[in-house]
């Protein structure tokens, strides 16, 4: 579904992503692990179109999207979440969800003035869907709260919820578990699994919570220094000495 080919991202001489090549299969939840600075989030930024790569190609459903703008990728069903929640802090939780669907009738000035009926109908449908999402996430009690006032975990749920407001096909989740307490974490896992099974979302998941990776992800890709180190099922990746080394660092000299 997604093919990344020889992708390079350079910032002032430093290669955050270095000739990275990987694929994500439709219907799978692909886990992306690796130490800090491995280039995982940069890779997400590249796939989602927030930044343009120095070189290399990204293909999505057979189409080259390397130079497509972020909003166009979104409309093709390629949706991402952020590691640090990027909620619209002055909008209510409900509005945060309702703003998501693309091509709403009410986003056109003229429709607002001359086709209010259509806009209102559209809006009812969007609101229904938003409430559904809130129920699914068990967030209905904070629907009218400003999103900025939510707890860290609730914001993470909201991030996930936004991906449900569109006809997403490939969802990039950047550390959904970070800063989320245990109970909420299990809920989050459950929701991701449901979305994968019932709605057929394909996920790529950056995560440091290995339990979550183990439960959800197949295959698991480990990145280090901007490129793919190893790919396989969780146990294979986990027990590979290179992975441990990437996390703990190579041995310098014979001090260890």
């Amino acid at each position, binding site marked *: 579904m997604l093919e990344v080919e020889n992708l390079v991202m350079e910032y*002032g001489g430093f290669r955050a992503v270095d000739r990275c090549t990987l694929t994500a299969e439709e219907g799978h939840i692909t886990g992306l692990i690796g130490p800090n*600075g491995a280039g995982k989030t940069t890779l997400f930024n590249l796939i989602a179109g927030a930044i343009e790569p120095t070189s290399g190609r990204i293909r999505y459903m057979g189409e080259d999207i390397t130079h497509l703008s972020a909003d166009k990728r979104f409309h093709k069903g390629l949706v991402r979440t952020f590691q640090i929640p990027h909620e619209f802090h002055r909008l209510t939780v409900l509005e945060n969800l309702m703003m998501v669907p693309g091509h709403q009738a009410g986003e056109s000035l003229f429709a607002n003035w001359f086709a209010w009926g259509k806009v209102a109908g559209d809006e009812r449908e969007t609101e229904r869907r938003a409430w559904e999402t809130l129920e699914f996430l068990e967030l209905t009690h904070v629907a009218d709260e400003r999103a900025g006032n939510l*707890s860290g975990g609730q914001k993470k749920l909201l991030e996930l919820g936004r991906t449900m407001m569109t006809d997403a096909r490939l969802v990039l989740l950047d550390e959904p578990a970070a800063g989320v307490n245990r109970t909420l974490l299990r809920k989050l896992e459950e929701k991701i699994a449901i979305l994968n099974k019932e709605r057929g979302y394909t996920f790529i998941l950056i995560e440091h919570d*290995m339990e979550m990776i183990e439960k959800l992800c197949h295959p698991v890709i480990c990145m280090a220094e901007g490129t793919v180190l190893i790919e396989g099922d969780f146990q294979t990746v986990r027990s590979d000495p290179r992975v*441990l080394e990437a996390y703990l*660092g*190579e041995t310098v000299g014979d001090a260890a």
Partner: protein
Amino acid sequence: MSPLLDMREVRGGYGDADILQGVSLNVAPGEIVAIVGPNGAGKSTAMKAIFGLLHVRGGKITIDGKDITGLKPNLIVQAGVCYVPQVDNIFREMTVHENLEMGAFLRSGDQTRAYDRVYGLFPDLKERRKTLAGNLSGGQRQMVAMGRALMLDPKVLLLDEPTAGLSPRYMEQIFQICRDVRDDGVALLLVEQHAKQALAFSDRGYVLASGANRHEGTGAELLADREVAEMFLGG
């Protein structure tokens, strides 16, 4: 030995949420201490708490017995703590020498000795003292950043991931420089991603997870601890 830098049960964060949920650590004179831990453990945050870049809601931080909890960074500098951030840690449009001058900004009088000391520690920089810092390689930039901090002759130097993004060759060089700095009489506290190397060359280490202390001990002890290795790969 009584600790030089002492951090006790510190809690705090940027917004309302506490990222640090009670972190305690200390650094004795002439020591290199490493803070390691999985991503999101609060390592850099702990360091920023020491340097007053964070809202500290509980606990106490002292240097040489003097309370510096919640002080402004410039006062903490005067108390003898210097900090090298992970990114944006040099003045790119100024020469290497000017970067060092900025390091000594708060000092008056003749700085020849301070320059000699820093250039002695970093001979590479001496050759390039007229080069714009922005034109240097990653490892050299890190040296500029450390040199700038050392100009104030601190008692403790805080380094936030000094080897991030560096090649193994440079990494080793930076570690060597850290030892030289220590031998020169400055204690070091560093946050490191490359846990194994860091613990191997540090005198002591702390392993943090989820904003709290998890393990501590000498570098060798921690390296040998199977539990510590496990932590990095699983919850």
